[in-house]
C-alpha cells in the first residue's frame, strides 16, 4: 500500500518536475523557446528524470534493505540469552517480534522481552520511515536542483535525455541476456552432477529412457536407462505433427485475411484466432485425450490400424491447434506490412493473386514469417500438459505417429514435480535434459538464422 502511495507521489512529482523544468527553461529565454538548444519539453523531461529517478532508485534500495536492517538492529539489542540462540531460531523469534509489532496474529502473547523488542521494532520502523521520507525528499530536491542548475539556454537537454533513453534500451535488452545466463546457470551445476553419475555419451546416445529403475538411491544403475534419443525423437515427432497443422492453417489464414478478406473480417477473425493461444493447456489436454485420441483410435480400428489410445498424433494435432495463432497472427502482421507497390508490380504483369502472394509477398515477408514459425516451434517444444494427457509418458523410440511417445519438456516437468530425490540421477536428469534441450534449440536457431539470412528478400 505504502509502495502504491509512493508510486502515485512519484508520478505526480514527475509531472510537476516536467512542467516546472519546461517552464523554467522558457523563463530563461523570456518565453522564446527558439533560443533554447532543445525543445522546452526536453528540459522538462530532463528535470523530471533527474528529480524522480535517483529518488526512486534510492527508495527501492531502501525498501529492499530496511526490513533486514531494522530486524538486525532489533536483534542486536536483544538480551544475550536470546542472541545466543542458533541463527534459525533467532530468525523465528524475530518473526514473532515482527508479527507482534505489526499487530499480526502471533503464536504467543510474548514475554516482556519480546514486548520490548516489538516496541523497539516499531520505534525503528517509524524512524526508518521518517528517514526514508527525508531521504527521498532530499534526493528529489537535490536532483531537481542539480538539473535546474544545469539548464542554460544552450544546454543540450535532448541529447541528454536521449542518452538516458538509449541506456534504458540497453538495460532492457540485457534482461534477455541475463535471463539466458540465469537459465544456463540454474541448470548447469545440477546437470554436471548428473553427468558425473551418468556418462555424457550414455545420455546422448542411449536408446532407452526409463527413469523408473532409478527411483531409489539403492537402485541406482539397475539399468542404464537415461538415453535421451527417444525423447528427442518424440519431441521432434510431436513438434512436427503440430507444425504440420499450425503452419498451413496459420499461414493460409494469415494470407487469406490480408489478401482476400475485407478489413472488417480481418479485424475480428485475427483476435478470435488469438484466443486459441490463450485457452489453458489443460483444456487442450482433455480435448486431445478424450475427444481426439478415441476418435483416432476408432478411425484406426475401422481401417484395421493398430492405434494406441495415447498417440503422438492426437497430442500433435491438438498442439497444432494451440499454436495456430503464433503463425497466423505474426505472419498476418508482416504480410500486411509488405508495401502495396510490390503487389502492384506483380499484378501488373498479369500474375494472379496466388502467384503474387507466393512469389512476391511471402518471400518479402519471409523473415517475419520464419520468426512466427520459430516461435510456434518453440512453443510446441515447450508444451507439456497436452503431451502428458494425450501422448502419455512412455519413451518409445519410434517414428510412428500412432504410437505413444513423450517429449523432453514433459520429462523435465514430471521429473521435477514428481517424487523428487535430489541425490539421484532421476531428478538431476531434469536439469541435464534442460541443458541439452537448450543447446539443441540453440543450434536449431543458429541454423534458422542462417537460412533466413540466405533467403530473405528485402524490399525498398
Amino acid at each position, binding site marked *: 500500500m505504502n509502495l502504491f502511495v509512493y508510486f502515485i507521489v512519484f508520478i505526480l512529482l514527475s509531472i510537476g518536475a516536467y512542467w516546472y523544468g519546461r517552464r523554467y527553461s522558457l523563463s530563461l529565454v523570456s518565453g522564446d523557446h527558439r533560443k533554447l538548444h532543445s525543445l522546452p519539453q526536453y528540459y522538462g523531461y530532463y528535470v523530471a528524470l533527474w528529480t524522480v529517478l535517483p529518488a526512486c532508485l534510492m527508495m527501492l534500495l531502501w525498501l529492499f534493505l530496511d526490513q533486514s536492517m531494522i530486524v538486525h538492529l532489533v536483534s542486536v539489542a536483544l538480551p544475550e540469552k536470546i542472541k545466543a540462540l542458533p541463527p534459525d531460531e533467532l530468525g523465528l523469534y524475530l518473526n514473532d517480534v515482527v508479527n507482534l509489532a505489526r499487530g499480526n496474529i502471533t503464536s504467543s502473547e510474548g514475554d516482556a522481552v519480546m514486548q520490548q523488542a516489538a516496541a523497539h521494532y516499531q520505534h525503528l520502523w517509524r524512524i526508518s520511515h521518517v528517514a526514508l521520507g527525508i531521504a527521498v525528499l532530499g534526493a528529489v530536491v537535490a536532483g531537481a536542483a542539480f538539473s535546474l542548475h544545469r539548464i542554460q539556454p544552450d544546454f543540450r537537454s535532448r541529447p541528454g535525455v536521449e542518452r538516458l533513453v538509449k541506456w534504458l534500451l540497453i538495460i532492457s535488452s540485457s534482461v534477455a541476456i541475463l535471463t539466458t545466463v540465469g537459465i544456463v546457470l540454474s541448470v548447469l551445476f545440477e546437470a554436471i552432477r548428473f553427468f558425473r553419475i551418468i556418462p555424457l555419451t550414455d545420455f546422448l546416445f542411449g536408446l532407452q529412457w526409463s527413469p523408473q529403475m532409478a527411483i531409489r538411491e539403492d537402485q541406482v544403475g539397475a539399468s542404464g536407462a537415461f538415453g535421451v534419443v527417444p525423447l528427442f525423437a518424440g519431441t521432434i515427432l510431436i513438434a512436427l505433427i503440430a507444425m504440420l497443422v499450425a503452419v498451413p492453417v496459420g499461414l493460409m489464414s494469415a494470407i487469406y485475411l490480408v489478401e482476400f478478406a*475485407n*478489413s472488417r473480417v480481418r479485424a475480428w477473425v485475427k483476435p478470435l484466432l488469438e484466443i486459441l493461444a490463450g485457452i489453458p493447456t489443460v483444456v487442450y489436454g482433455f480435448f486431445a485425450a478424450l475427444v481426439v485420441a478415441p476418435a483416432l483410435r476408432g478411425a484406426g480400428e475401422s481401417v484395421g490400424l493398430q492405434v494406441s489410445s495415447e498417440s503422438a498424433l492426437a497430442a500433435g494435432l491438438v498442439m497444432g491447434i494451440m499454436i495456430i495463432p503464433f503463425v497466423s497472427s505474426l505472419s498476418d502482421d508482416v504480410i500486411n506490412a509488405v*508495401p*502495396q*507497390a*510490390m*503487389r*502492384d*508490380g*506483380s*499484378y*501488373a*504483369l*498479369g*500474375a*494472379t493473386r496466388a*502467384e503474387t502472394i507466393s*512469389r*512476391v509477398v511471402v*518471400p*518479402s515477408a519471409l523473415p517475419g514469417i520464419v520468426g512466427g514459425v520459430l516461435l510456434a516451434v518453440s512453443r510446441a517444444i515447450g508444451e507439456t500438459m497436452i503431451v502428458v494427457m494425450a501422448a502419455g509418458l512412455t519413451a518409445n523410440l519410434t517414428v510412428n505417429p500412432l504410437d505413444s511417445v513423450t517429449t523432453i519438456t514433459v520429462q523435465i516437468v514430471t521429473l521435477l514435480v514428481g517424487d523428487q530425490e535430489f541425490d539421484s540421477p532421476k531428478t538431476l536428469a531434469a536439469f541435464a535434459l534442460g541443458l541439452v534441450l537448450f543447446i539443441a534449440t540453440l543450434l536449431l536457431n543458429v541454423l534458422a538464422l542462417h537460412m533466413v539470412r540466405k533467403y530473405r*528478400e*528485402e*524490399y*525498398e
Partner: protein
Amino acid sequence: MLAVDQKRSFMSVVENPVDKVSVEVSVPDAMAHQDKTVGKPLLDKKVSMRCRNVDVFYGEKQAIFDVSLDIGKHEVLAMIGPSGCGKSTFLRCLNRMNDTIDSCRVLGSLRLDDEDIYDPKMDVELLRARVGMVFQKPNPFPKSIYENVAYGARIHGLTRDKTELDEIVENSLARAGLWNEVKDRLDDVGTGLSGGQQQRLCIARAIAINPEVILMDEPCSALDPIATATVEELIDDLRRRYTIVMVTHSMQQAARVSQRTAYFHMGKLVEVDKTDKVFTNPGHELTEAYITGRFG
C-alpha cells in the same frame, strides 16, 4: 468498383461482337458525347482501346470525370496535364490496376479489342499480360535482377528451358538499356540499384512478356538523358507493333515520341489530338495555357 451497369445501355450498341463498322456514331448518346468530346473517335479497326464516359471515384471523391478516349493501334499516346489531374488514375483503369485500391470505383466502358475490360468474365490476368504497365515509382521485386525480369515469363509459363529464359532476360534488359550495366551482377538484388536503374529494370520487366499495350507512368522521370534516349528509342521501336500509352511531364518528350497527345485537367479530358496539333494549335485555352507555360 465494377458498377458499370448504368452505362451499359450506351455500350450495348458498341458491344455487338460482329461490329466492325463504326456504329456508335449514329447513336444519339454518342453524338451527344461527340459534341462534348475533344477528339473525334478513331475508326474501329484502328482502335486498340476504346474508353467511353469513364468516371473514377476514390470513395466519395471523383478523380476522373466522364472521359471518353480512343487509343489507336500502333500509336504512342501521350498523356499530359498538371500534377494530380488524374493521369495515373486513368492509366490504371486501362489494365484494371485500380481494382487493388479498395476505395476506387470505375464507371463507364473500357474496351480492349472489343472486349469489355470491366466485364466480370474478363480475365484480369490475361488483360494485364496484354496491357503491361510501368509505374511512376519504380517498384522492383526484392529478388535478383534476373528474377525480376524473368518473373512474368515464369508465371505465364512462356518458356520451359533456361536458355530461352536467359534470352528473354537479356533481350529485355538490353532493350531497356540496362544490360551493359547489370550483366555482371544479374544475381544482385534489384532493390540495390540506383533510382534510374530501377526504373529501367521495371521497363525491362514489363516488356519481357511482350504485351500488346504498354502503359507507362512517367517512365523517364528518374532517367538521365542517355537512358531516356534509350527508352524513347525503345518506345519508337515498340510502337510499330504495340500500342503505348505514356504519361509524361516533358512536353518535348511527348512531342518526340507520341503521335497523339491527350491533355487532362482536373480529372477531365480537355483535349486529345495529333501531337503536332496539340502543341502548335491547341484546341482549348486550358491546353494552350498549359503548354505555353515554361517547359520542363
